């Protein structure tokens, strides 16, 4: 085959039936998906990129690449290779990327390892490796990225890893590793990312992560850990830790004392019952903390020094009180989810000025004081359903200018203060059997969905013809049309007649849309058996 060279004469040495492309004086050769059973013979010494992936190559002849000193990337993934000797890869002095994933490799060379002094990325994932001989990596000392995931390893290849001082990212995921011994990664001082997810790790030595001074990401998800991995204590640079889907029952006191840089911790899907009160202290960069179903938690965790928390979820535990200084500790809180506890009294959330969502459903709250939700001007959703609330102070909601969703379902209310609730679009009051008042629509100009205890309370929302004289409802509707038109023109006088303005078009469409939503969906809907007149 020949390469067409736009500027100069035809260049030889593009092996049939491969495709070649010039890159300056160099050549990039694509022989992928051609049904080849061996490496093409007449490859140009100026080849810098060679793709042999997705063929039927089961063996690499010795010295197959010995002339390719300039080769930078070699892809042999998706073939049937069982073994690659050290001699097969001779001559590849400049190789940086070697892709061997999706083959049938059962063994790696030990006595005569690959001599690839400039190799940076080595993919061995999706093969059949059950072990990695001690000497395998002796000739790839510059290696930075290593994929060994989706193999059959049962142990950490500790000795083999000793030869990789420059390694920065490694995955051993999807193997059958059951234990991490002490000092397993001692020489990997440059390692930043370590994936161990989807193994069968049940135990680990308390010193197993010694030496990982640069580690920022540790992924232990989907294993069989029964104890909290205290070995993480030596990982001072750790930022992201995952051990969700394990079998851990307790998070000890001062669990993360050695990890002040932690930003995210994922540990859901663990049967966690106990959490030490000081477990999550002094994590100034942590922004999310989720604890669900830890039934032995009786006291709210002490979050001293964990000042960046934005999302706190602590549900289905045994909390009965909240600390009075909760918001002083967590000034940046945006979402507070405390449902399914036994909370009776609420502190003032005054200093949590960034709060947008509060979930307190399924607790034992009885009263809402005036200062409980004061100054929460960003609060958008407040769920107080399934409590025992009998009384709400008249000023409790006055500063909640952004509140659009309020759920008071299943409480013991006989009245609800409406001051401050003008932005509501969703209000739920079902199940407050002592609440008979029919709230006027004027209180809720933006209301869209409202659930009332009784059907007759929906009649004020025009849900039944017998209550509302029809002409008043229509005329009322037409007035609003004229108002809207006048206000639009007033805002854009110059565009009123002469000039088409897309922004105005969009603005008018929004008005049209909002008009469609003026009809409020109020339930229970009045009907023959639920007349508009109160039966009492």
């Amino acid at each position, binding site marked *: 085959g020949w390469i067409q060279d736009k500027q100069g004469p035809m260049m030889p040495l593009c092996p049939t039936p491969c*495709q070649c*492309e010039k*890159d300056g004086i160099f050549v*990039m050769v*694509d022989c*992928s*998906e051609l049904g080849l059973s061996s490496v093409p013979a007449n490859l140009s010494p100026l080849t*810098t*990129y060679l*793709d042999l*992936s*997705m063929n039927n190559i089961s063996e690499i002849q010795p010295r197959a690449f010995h002339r390719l000193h300039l080769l*930078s*990337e070699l*892809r042999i*993934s*998706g073939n049937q290779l069982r073994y690659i000797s050290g001699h097969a890869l001779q001559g590849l002095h400049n190789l*940086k*990327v070697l*892709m061997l*994933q*999706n083959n049938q490799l059962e063994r790696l060379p030990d006595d005569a390892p690959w001599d690839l002094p400039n190799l*940076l*990325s080595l*993919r061995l*994932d*999706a093969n059949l490796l059950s072990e990695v001989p001690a000497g395998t990596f002796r000739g790839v000392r510059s290696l*930075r*990225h290593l994929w060994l*995931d*989706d193999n059959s390893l049962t142990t950490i290849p500790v000795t083999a890893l000793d030869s990789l001082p420059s390694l*920065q*990212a490694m*995955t051993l*995921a*999807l193997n059958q590793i059951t234990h991490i011994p002490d000092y397993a990664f001692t020489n990997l001082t*440059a390692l*930043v*990312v370590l*994936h161990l*997810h*989807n193994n069968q790790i049940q135990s680990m030595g308390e010193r197993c992560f010694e030496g990982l001074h*640069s580690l*920022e*990401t540790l992924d232990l998800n989907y294993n069989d850990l029964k104890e909290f991995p205290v070995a993480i204590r030596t990982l001072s640079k750790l*930022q*992201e830790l995952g051990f969700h889907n394990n079998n851990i029952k307790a998070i000890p006191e001062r669990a993360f004392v050695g990890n002040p840089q932690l930003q995210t911790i994922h540990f859901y899907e663990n049967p966690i019952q106990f959490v030490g009160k000081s477990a999550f202290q002094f994590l100034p960069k942590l922004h999310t903390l989720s604890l669900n179903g830890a039934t032995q938690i009786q006291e709210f965790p002490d979050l001293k020094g964990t000042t960046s928390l934005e999302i706190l979820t602590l549900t289905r535990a045994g909390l009965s009180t909240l600390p009075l200084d909760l918001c002083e500790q967590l000034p940046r809180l945006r979402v507070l989810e405390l449902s399914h506890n036994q909370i009776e009294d609420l502190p003032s959330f005054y200093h949590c000025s960034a709060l947008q969502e509060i979930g307190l459903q399924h607790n034992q709250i009885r009263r809402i004081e005036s200062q409980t939700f004061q100054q929460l001007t960003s609060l958008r959703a407040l769920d107080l359903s399934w409590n025992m609330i009998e009384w709400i102070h008249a000023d409790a909601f006055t500063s909640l200018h952004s509140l659009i969703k309020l759920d008071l379902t299943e409480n013991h209310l006989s009245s609800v203060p409406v001051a401050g609730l003008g932005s509501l679009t969703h209000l739920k009051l079902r199940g407050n059997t002592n609440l008979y008042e029919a709230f006027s629509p004027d209180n809720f100009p933006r209301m869209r969905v409202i659930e009332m205890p009784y059907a007759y309370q929906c009649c004020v929302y025009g849900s039944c013809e017998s209550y509302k004289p029809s002409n008043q409802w229509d005329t009322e509707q037409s007035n609003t049309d004229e108002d809207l038109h006048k206000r639009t023109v007033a805002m854009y006088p110059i565009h009123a007649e002469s000039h088409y303005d897309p922004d105005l078009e969009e603005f008018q469409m929004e008005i049209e849309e909002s008009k469609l939503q003026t009809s409020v969906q109020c339930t229970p809907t009045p009907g023959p058996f639920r007349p508009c007149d109160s039966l009492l």
Partner: protein
Amino acid sequence: QHKQISGVSSGCQQGGCLTCSDYNGCLSCKPRFFMHLERIGMKQIGVCMTSCPPGFYGTRSPERNTCTKCRLECDSCFNKNFCTRCRAGFYLHLGKCQENCPEGLVRSDTQRECV
């Protein structure tokens, strides 16, 4: 420096497909292959690969193997927080692509790294 020149054979001729349709390409992949939706004009074609295309990283799991976009400043990456090669104008240091290098290191435009 690698350049993905191998065109992706569309429709059902791909080696990694388990189920496919001529219109949508691969609908599911053989075990251990990565499923990726390649945009060709207005269409999205399912493609099964042994490694994700440039600008994406692969995540293997027992159920399926997926390709996820790297950060904007990365040409290629190991996972969402660790780049292995930067876009032009960014320089790699310990998996991060930054416009400037830490003290003591200088920017190499050819390698796009802090050296």
